[in-house]
């Protein structure tokens, strides 16, 4: 229900630059996933929008209004913290009720009860409502933490790795639920994750951060297929993109220093010989670890491949990405 704009935002913590002149427009109602390694500035970006930290330079706009000087409570944002930050002396129910009991909202009792029950149901913690927050497992705490954001109806959701300590099944369930809730409420959602499946399946936009700089911003598909640099290319894709010297295959354009090949972009059965080092059967597909001219690379193949380690196959690049010496992609 609100557009978020960061304009030339810079933030320094004790000499370390956390955000370096970041400009970013998060469209109204979009689901934006921020990617990047630890220290890239993902969490700092969320804290800028929430108001927990203020930019050293630059401006943050929510719904077109500059929010400098507005406390988090005045911004109508809900945040899920990476370290959960539950109220330790309260029960799960009281934790979930806490935001609704804000005098700013004046939520009637029945509505609080209904909302808490609803959210607890979605997050599969209804049976834990009367437990103390400290008597929960990590995954349960994390779900309560998500729930505390979901009971509200904020303009913006900010979520810092909200599914990181859940098991695979629950994670898959909640990916769908979060996407559904966000779509239904129309709220803007900023989401930090390391998990590329979350990024690919949930995001309408992906922002790639590196050392405080926004490297690329676009749809997950665009970032995957048209990465601006080696760095952006390695953020998405599992197994990772293979990056090799450009001259390893013929046909590299002028100025190319390296060639990037996604595992599925290595065509098999034609081209040059590569040695199969290891074969990993994953059930739905098979990963091949190859050695090609002293370089390791990974590709995927049919689930029922008869190939075995030690054999040789022929490979050639398909839809290669070329990068210059600085790691930027050549158009």
């Amino acid at each position, binding site marked *: 229900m609100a557009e978020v704009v960061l304009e030339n935002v810079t933030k320094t913590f004790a000499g370390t630059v956390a955000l370096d002149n970041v400009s970013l427009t998060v469209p109204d109602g979009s689901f934006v996933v921020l990617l990047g390694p630890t220290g890239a500035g993902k969490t700092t970006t969320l804290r800028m929008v929430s108001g*927990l930290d203020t930019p050293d330079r630059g401006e943050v706009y929510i719904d077109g209004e500059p929010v400098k000087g507005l406390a*988090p409570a005045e911004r109508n944002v809900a945040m899920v913290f990476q370290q959960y930050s539950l109220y330790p*002396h309260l029960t799960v129910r009281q934790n979930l009720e806490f935001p609704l009991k*804000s005098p700013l909202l004046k939520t009637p009792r029945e509505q609080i009860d209904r909302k808490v029950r609803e959210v607890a149901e979605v997050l599969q913690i209804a049976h834990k409502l009367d437990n103390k927050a400290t008597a929960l497992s990590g995954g349960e705490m994390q779900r309560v933490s998500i729930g*505390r954001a979901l009971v509200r109806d904020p303009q913006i959701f900010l979520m810092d790795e909200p599914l990181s300590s859940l098991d695979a099944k629950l994670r898959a369930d909640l990916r769908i639920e979060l996407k559904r809730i966000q779509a239904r409420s129309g709220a803007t959602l900023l989401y930090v994750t390391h998990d590329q499946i979350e990024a690919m399946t949930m995001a309408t936009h992906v922002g790639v951060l590196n050392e405080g700089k926004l490297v690329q911003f676009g749809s997950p598909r665009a970032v995957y297929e048209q990465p601006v640099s080696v760095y952006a290319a390695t953020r998405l894709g599992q197994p990772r993109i293979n990056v090799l010297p450009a001259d390893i295959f013929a046909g590299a354009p002028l100025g190319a220093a390296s060639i990037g090949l996604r595992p599925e972009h290595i065509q098999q059965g034609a081209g040059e010989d590569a040695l199969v080092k290891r074969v990993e059967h994953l059930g739905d597909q098979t990963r091949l670890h190859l050695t090609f001219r002293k370089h390791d690379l990974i590709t995927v193949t049919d689930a029922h491949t008869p190939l075995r380690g030690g054999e040789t196959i022929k490979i050639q690049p398909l839809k290669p990405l070329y990068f210059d010496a600085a790691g930027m992609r050549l158009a």
Partner: protein
Amino acid sequence: MLKSTVDRVAGATPHALAKRVRGLSDRSLAWLFVAPSIVLLLAVNIFPLIWTVRLSFTNFRVNRPNAEVQFIGLKNYLSILSDKDIWLTMQATAHFLIWTIVLQVLIGFSLAYLINKKFRGNDLWTTIIVLPMMLSPAVVGNFWTFLYQPQIGLFNYAVGFLTGADPSSFSMIGDVSLAPWAIIIVDTWMWTPFVMLICLAGLRSIPSSIYEAAECDRASKWRQFWTITIPLVLPFLMLAVLFRGIENFKMFDLVVQLTGGGPGSITELTSINLKREAFEKWRTGYASAYAVILFVTVFGLASIYVKALNKVKQR
């Protein structure tokens, strides 16, 4: 409790070690280790306690060792409980106890709350504030008698300066209506830092991320204070009250040094009164009964309190 400790020690003893000490099982080895403490405890705590209870039923006087000791039943207890003067000392003690705790908790928590805010030099301020409790009670009592001195005392001067009253028109120690407050002020001055330190430990144990979550949940500072700060500091605060309560129930040195129980017997707290009975009037049996009554009172109050404390902690 003791048995379970022994079991635990026995369980924790490496098997090979136990084997090497021939003829001793893990269990007896464990008993051997705790035996010195048990013996010491029995000798200096348990035995005197039992002996005191025995003496409390007699007319024994320690300054007349050759006189015949008679068992007089509950007579000591009955005469203590029906003694109006003793009830007055109990009242004085209760007055002292309640006001020192109320003031020390209020001021101590407020100071801790302020010191906990990040500002330049708060470590230095903490050190300065904590100084009074590092002094000896005898010293504190002695120099406060100077501060309270009507003609030259700084306290009287300060009160006079602030209110316009004549500094020598009142005596904190000499006036019947002021003396109870004189001892409360000094005890508060001396021991508020202790309460502050415990509150500070409590405040510092609350992670800042909880306040950040509350900020995002749109809780005002006021609501954060009442729904997060207070409940999370409460167990610490109650512990401070327990410590101060027990300490002040047996308050002796500071008050003896300041007022000596006077004027009259208006600041004569139970421990001072008890000491008079035992070591000035030498009524040993009577004083023993007195001590038993005080012991039961403190023990009873403390156990109720500790139960409440555990409840708060579990919440």
